[in-house]
C-alpha cells in the first residue's frame, strides 16, 4: 500500500516536472516569436502566403460551419421558445449566442483541427528530415522564417474568419426561421437592433484573436518538438489538434470571466 502510494506520488511528480518543463519551453518559443516579430517586414511575402494558406483557404469550411451553426441555433431557439416567449426573441437570442460564443469558438475549433494540425505536421516533417537544421545552418532563424509568419497570419485571419462565420450564421438562422418555420422577416430581425451592443462585437472578435494566436503557437511548438520519423509526425498532428482544442476552451472560459 505504502509502496503503491509512493509510486503514484513519484508518477505525479514526474508528470508535473515534465509539464512544467514543456511550459517553460513553450514560453521560450513565445518569447522568441515576440522578439523576432519584426522579421515579418523582411518576410512580407511569407506572411501573405500564410494568410492565404491558413486563412483564405479555410474560408469555405468556416462558412459551411457558420451556416449550419446558425441554422441549428434558429431551429433550436424556435423549439425552446415555443409557448414560453414571443418568437421575436429568436433573432436577438441567436445573434447573441452566435456573436459571443458559437461563432468564435466553433470557428476556432474547426481552424484548430485544420490549421494547428497542419502546421504541426508540416514543421514536424521539416524537423525529422533535418530541413529545420538546414535552415539554421544557413543562418536563418527557424522561428522567424517558419513560426512568425504562421502565428501572425493566423492571429490576423482568425477574427476575419470569425466575422464571416457570424454573418453567414445569421443568414442561416434567418433562412430557417423565415423559410422553414414561417416567421416574418420583421419578426426575426426586428428586435436585433435593440439588443445590439458594439462591445459584444468587439468581445467576440477579441476572443477569436486569442484563439488564433493559441492554435498557431501550439502548432508551431509541437511541430518544432517533433521527433521520431513518420510516427512522430502523426503523433505531433494529433497532439496539436487536441491541445489547441483544449487551449481554446480554457481561454474561452478565462476571457469570459474577464470580458463579461
Amino acid at each position, binding site marked *: 500500500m505504502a509502496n503503491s502510494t509512493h509510486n503514484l506520488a513519484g508518477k505525479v511528480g514526474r508528470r508535473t516536472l515534465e509539464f512544467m518543463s514543456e511550459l517553460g519551453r513553450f514560453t521560450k518559443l513565445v518569447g522568441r516569436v515576440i522578439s523576432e516579430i519584426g522579421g515579418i517586414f523582411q518576410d512580407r511575402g511569407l506572411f501573405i502566403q500564410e494568410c492565404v494558406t491558413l486563412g483564405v483557404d479555410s474560408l469555405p469550411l468556416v462558412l459551411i460551419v457558420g451556416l449550419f451553426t446558425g441554422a441549428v441555433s434558429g431551429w433550436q431557439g424556435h423549439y425552446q421558445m415555443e409557448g414560453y416567449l414571443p418568437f421575436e426573441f429568436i433573432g436577438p437570442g441567436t445573434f447573441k449566442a452566435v456573436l459571443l460564443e458559437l461563432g468564435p469558438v466553433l470557428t476556432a475549433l474547426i481552424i484548430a483541427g485544420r490549421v494547428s494540425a497542419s502546421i504541426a505536421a508540416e514543421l514536424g516533417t521539416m524537423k525529422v528530415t533535418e*530541413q529545420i537544421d538546414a535552415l539554421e545552418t544557413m*543562418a536563418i*532563424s527557424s522561428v522567424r522564417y517558419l513560426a512568425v509568419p504562421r502565428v501572425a497570419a493566423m492571429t490576423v485571419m482568425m477574427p476575419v474568419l470569425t466575422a464571416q462565420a457570424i454573418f453567414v450564421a445569421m443568414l442561416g438562422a434567418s433562412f430557417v426561421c423565415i423559410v422553414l418555420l414561417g416567421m416574418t422577416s420583421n419578426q426575426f430581425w426586428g428586435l436585433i437592433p435593440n439588443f445590439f451592443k458594439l462591445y459584444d462585437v468587439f468581445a467576440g472578435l477579441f476572443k477569436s484573436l486569442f484563439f488564433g494566436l493559441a492554435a498557431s503557437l501550439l502548432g508551431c511548438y509541437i511541430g518544432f518538438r517533433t521527433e521520431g520519423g513518420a510516427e512522430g509526425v502523426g503523433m505531433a498532428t494529433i497532439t496539436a489538434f487536441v491541445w489547441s482544442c483544449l487551449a481554446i476552451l480554457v481561454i474561452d472560459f478565462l476571457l469570459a470571466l474577464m470580458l463579461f
Partner: protein
Amino acid sequence: MLTRLGEQITPETLFKMIEVRGVHRSFNGKHVLRGVDMTIETGESITIIGQSGCGKSVLLKHLVGLMVPESGTITVDGRDITSARRKELYEIRMKFGVLFQGAALFDSMTVEENISLGLRQHTALGDAEIANRVRECLTLVNMDGTQKLKPAELSGGMRKRVGLARAIAMQPSYILYDEPTTGLDPITADSINDLIIHLNQKLSVTTVVVTHDMVSAYKVSDRIVMLHEGRIIFSGTPDETKNAKTDIVRRFVNGEADAQSYVITSY
C-alpha cells in the same frame, strides 16, 4: 607585412581553424561524447569515422552550433560558439555549408529556390545575379538545368548534389558532409567523392566528412580520425589508417566484427 602563403595575417586568419576541447554530451542518460578533443586545420580535408550510433553526426552538429555541449568548448576561427549569442552564432554559421545525410532540401521549394534562399536572406543581390550564382553552383555539381525541378522529382544522388550546391552558394570557408555517400550506389557514391575533392580544391575550403564508408574516407581525406566510445582514439593519414595497429581501428577499417559481440547462446 607578415604573410603566410601570400595571405595577410590578421587575428581572424591566425585562428582560422576549428578547435574542439573536452566536449561532453549525453542524451537520455546515454553519455555519447565523453571529452572529444580535435583540431581541424584550415584547408584540410578531415574525415570522422566510427561505428553507427557512436556520435559522429552529433559531433558534426556541435561544430556548427546546432547542438550545445554540456561541457567543453568549440572555437571557430578563434570564436567560442558554445557561449556565443544567437546573432554571433548566425554570423559564424555563415562560414559553414552543410550537406545533410538526406540532403534536407526544402520540399516546398524548387531547386533554384533552395539554393537561392541564403542569398536572398543575407545579400542584396538582384534576381539576375542570384540566378547566375545558382547556375554557377549547379554547374559545379553537374546539375545545371534542374533549376525548376522540385526535390521530389530528383533521385537520391541528384538530391545530394543539389544539397551540395546549396551548401556552397554562400561561399563558405567550411563544408561539412554528414554521410555523403550513404544510401547511394557505388558509382554515384564515387561521383560524390570526386565532387568533394573537386570542391575542396576549387573553392579552397576546409572539409569535414562524417562517414563509415571507408572507400569514401580513403579517397577524400587528408586525415582520418576515429570516434569510439565518445572519444577520438585515432588520427592519421589514409595510409596510416590502413596500417593502423590499434585493434579497434584495424577491425573497423577492415570491416571485421568483434567475435566477443557475436557469442550465440546455446539452447
